[in-house]
């Protein structure tokens, strides 16, 4: 009976850990999306420096989550997200809000997908 209780406890622990992980990744992506939208707004107002500042904060937040992302997220996704960050930086430096919109959209979509993939739903399970 002891073994069964331990197995049930371990299973519950894994489920709890997965819910915590999901919560963490949702919070992380929400923060990143907020910073990116602030950066986009700043760029639309022709404030390149502020846009770049928000970009830097978002990128720093992404980099600081290195331990979490490399344990839980596929490395290909991490690499692609980093590439999108740098592409976005390039468009911010060029200072063109219209062409930067696509870059913002791409990065935001990728971050949303990362959170969506972790969330149990019919689409993600099947």
């Amino acid at each position, binding site marked *: 009976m002891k*073994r069964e209780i331990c*197995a*049930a406890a*371990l*299973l519950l622990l*894994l489920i709890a850990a997965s819910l915590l992980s999901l919560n963490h990744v949702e919070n992380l992506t929400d923060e990143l999306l907020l910073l990116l939208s602030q950066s986009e707004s700043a760029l639309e107002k022709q404030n390149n420096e502020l846009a770049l500042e928000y970009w830097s904060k978002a990128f720093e937040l992404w980099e600081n989550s290195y331990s979490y992302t490399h344990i839980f997220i596929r*490395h*290909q996704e991490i690499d692609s997200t980093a590439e999108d960050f740098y592409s976005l930086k390039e468009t911010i430096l060029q200072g063109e809000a219209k062409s930067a919109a696509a870059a913002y959209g791409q990065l935001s979509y990728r971050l949303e997908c990362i959170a969506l993939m972790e969330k149990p739903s019919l689409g993600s399970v099947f």
Partner: protein
Amino acid sequence: MAIVIVRTLIVYLTLLVIMRLMGKRQLGEMELSEFIVAALIADMAAHPLQDIGIPMINGLVPVLVLFCCEVLISGLSMKSIALRSLLFGRPSILIEKGRIRQNELRKNRFTLDELMQQLRNQSVTDISQVEYAILETDGRLNVLLYPDKQPMSPSVLGISLPCGAYPVLVINNGRVLGQNLRLMGKNERWLASELKKRGCTSARSVFCMSLDREGRIYFAPMEDK
């Protein structure tokens, strides 16, 4: 490459621990759920080894979940006969009182050729000698011959034999197994005297020595390498 080596070691040790915790049944004849778990565990654990872009956790978590499910299901099935028969099925009697139950053969998709093969595996070539043949839930076929076709035993002949004594190893490849020695009610002094009788000065020159409750000793010295 270093990453692959480290991952392989982690997966190997994890699987070792998991299979050990699952128990001896996993290593012997397996029931259906056990077979599924064994097949899945090996495959899932291998994914992070093939692609280092996949996080290790994607290989280890499924293994842990399968382990938990297997332990819970096997534990519950021990307590519930209904669950046991639902998960593992019931044994099927393929031959009853010498008559082949063709309906049972069809139900189990067991052909006559397979039945004959399984009987031959158990050294039965004449089907008319078989009183019962039972297909177990793990796929094994157990055969019971008619009493007059069964091998002779001393009790049938009215011969009484002394009870057998289970031998226990006391020296294994040069190492003295102290616990087994004490189990047999002996000690190191007795062992030393027995070794001396056999021309050995130390247990290191003994490959195998066993002892049973009747005092019978099996002795094999170490061969020169």
